[in-house]
């Protein structure tokens, strides 16, 4: 399968400029990574509403909270590992607990950050943000969906976390698709197995579905782009109709998306499951596609997990 590729970050920058044009309450903060996160686009367009906080993520989150107290809608960006790890307590105490209108949009998440190595490859961010009450958690699958997700969270009061990768990723959604917070989308229908992908792992799920089709297996592919609130209706329907589920995430399988899906199904409609993702180990330097294969997050890994879990179907 071939797709055009696009950067999620560029789409974030584009969405910010669009928001800034129509809404004077939009303020953007960054922590010395505006070129990487693409908040620089907003900074160029609306310099009076952009504030670089320097390499001080904790203060950036607190400042974002204060701006929100003053009636602003705030976007705060840096790399995901710093936004959610370095500044975790500030996100919890100063943003989520007081329920303030701050959108944390973080880039360079997951192992596809590549060469920088494990210090920068966060695979805990979804778990950390998801565990905080009041927080909405969104992991868009591609550039256009990132654009729409940013516009969507700007319309909703309260804290949100949006996770983006570093790499250019295949464009698998259409500009015509509506982005609804809390709604997963079925990208391919199928009845033998459900492949539930998050973020950049939706593409391996789509490719695995093609591989499985050659073997006569009908795979449903779900793009689970909102992690909280979780679209349990779509997940339960898939479990009921397909009888087995594979989750795929570029994140630790411990406390990750697969764990959440498993918990949701266990309480309503448990089916055999297999989780594809980082196996609770730190990554290393390398090209992103090399790393995805090395740590078992390639297309073949998703297909293999599907075949394995189908053996356990009753």
């Amino acid at each position, binding site marked *: 399968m071939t797709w055009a590729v696009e950067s999620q970050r560029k789409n974030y920058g584009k969405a910010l400029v669009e928001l800034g044009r129509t809404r004077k309450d939009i303020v953007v903060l960054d922590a010395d990574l505006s070129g990487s996160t693409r908040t620089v686009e907003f900074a160029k367009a609306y310099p009076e509403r952009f504030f670089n906080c320097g390499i001080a993520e904790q203060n950036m989150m607190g*400042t974002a909270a204060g701006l929100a107290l003053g009636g602003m809608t705030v976007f705060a960006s840096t790399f995901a590992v710093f936004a959610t790890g370095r500044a975790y307590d500030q996100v919890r105490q100063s943003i989520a607990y007081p329920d303030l209108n701050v959108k944390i949009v973080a880039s360079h998440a997951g192992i596809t950050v590549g060469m920088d190595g494990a210090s920068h490859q966060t695979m805990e961010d979804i778990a950390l943000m998801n565990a905080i009450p009041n927080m909405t958690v969104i992991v868009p699958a591609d550039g256009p969906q990132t654009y729409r997700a940013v516009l969507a969270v700007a319309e909703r009061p309260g804290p949100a976390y949006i996770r983006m990768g570093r790499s250019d990723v295949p464009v698998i959604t259409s500009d015509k698709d509506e982005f609804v917070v809390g709604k997963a989308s079925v990208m391919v229908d199928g009845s033998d197995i459900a492949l539930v992908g998050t973020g950049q792992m939706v593409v391996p799920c789509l490719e695995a579905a093609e591989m499985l089709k050659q073997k006569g297996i009908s795979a449903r592919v779900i793009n689970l782009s909102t992690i909280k609130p979780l679209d349990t209706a779509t997940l339960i329907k898939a479990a009921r109709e397909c009888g087995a589920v594979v989750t795929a995430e570029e994140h630790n399988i411990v406390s990750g998306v697969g764990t959440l899906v498993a918990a949701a199904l266990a309480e309503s409609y448990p089916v055999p499951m297999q989780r594809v993702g980082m196996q609770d180990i730190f990554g290393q330097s390398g090209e992103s596609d090399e790393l995805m294969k090395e740590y078992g997050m390639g297309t073949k890994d998703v297909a293999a997990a599907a075949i394995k879990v189908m053996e356990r179907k009753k």
Partner: protein
Amino acid sequence: MNFPEQKGVHELEAKANLLRRHVIRMIHAAGSGHPGGSLSAADIVTALFFKVMDHSPENVDSVDRDHFILSKGHAAPIYYAALAECGYFPVDELVTLRKLHSRLQGHPSRVKTKGVEMSTGSLGQGLSAANGLALALRMKGLDRRVYCLCGDGEMAEGQIWEAAMFASHYHLDNVICIVDRNGLQIDGRTEDVMSLEPLGDKWQAFGWNVLYMNGNDIGQVLDTLKAAKAHRGSPTVIVAKTVKGKGVSFMENNVGFHGKAPNDKEFEQAMKELGGSV
């Protein structure tokens, strides 16, 4: 202007003592809480809420007012006492502090309590929020001040100095940070636990206008806050020398009463010393 009450120094001193009695009563009723840092800050909080700040329960949701953030969130009792006396909620409610379903959480919550502008409790975070709020005020063209009351112990938090850099870099002269320099933290004297001095010089080096005052002398507090408000071009910090536990003899300079409630006997004694009845 919408000052809730205009008071002279003597009336403010009486008000501070009333707030101190509320603090003792609340913490005694709760059986836990932090009297030391509430009592040290009582005069500063009184000056702000009953003289200096333009605020009222009617404009609580408005950005166009003066603002207060209690970075040292464990001093919640003195904050609640001031808010109740200003009419944000009934004074009778004060004794529900720390109880199940009370609006008065152990540390301030803006979601729960009318008048509380920012949730705090994890130390070192209030000043960043004050900066953000000050930026918003400036962007909206509102000539208002954000007062941020910090403890001295929390000066050891790195985020304080990140925020100090930020306020200076962006010339946030509408931020007034007051450090309740009572010299004691949970584990002992600040200078034994983690040296802070020369504290004012540190702030000066970060680009702040630095003022000093006796934070338990209301006349001085009023004068210093007036000077801070008049200063333009850079943020102002006031290092306020105070006595921890001020007003209750056995709590004064006693680190044991940082986070401990008085027993029944101590409660009676404290109320007597503060000129109130049990």
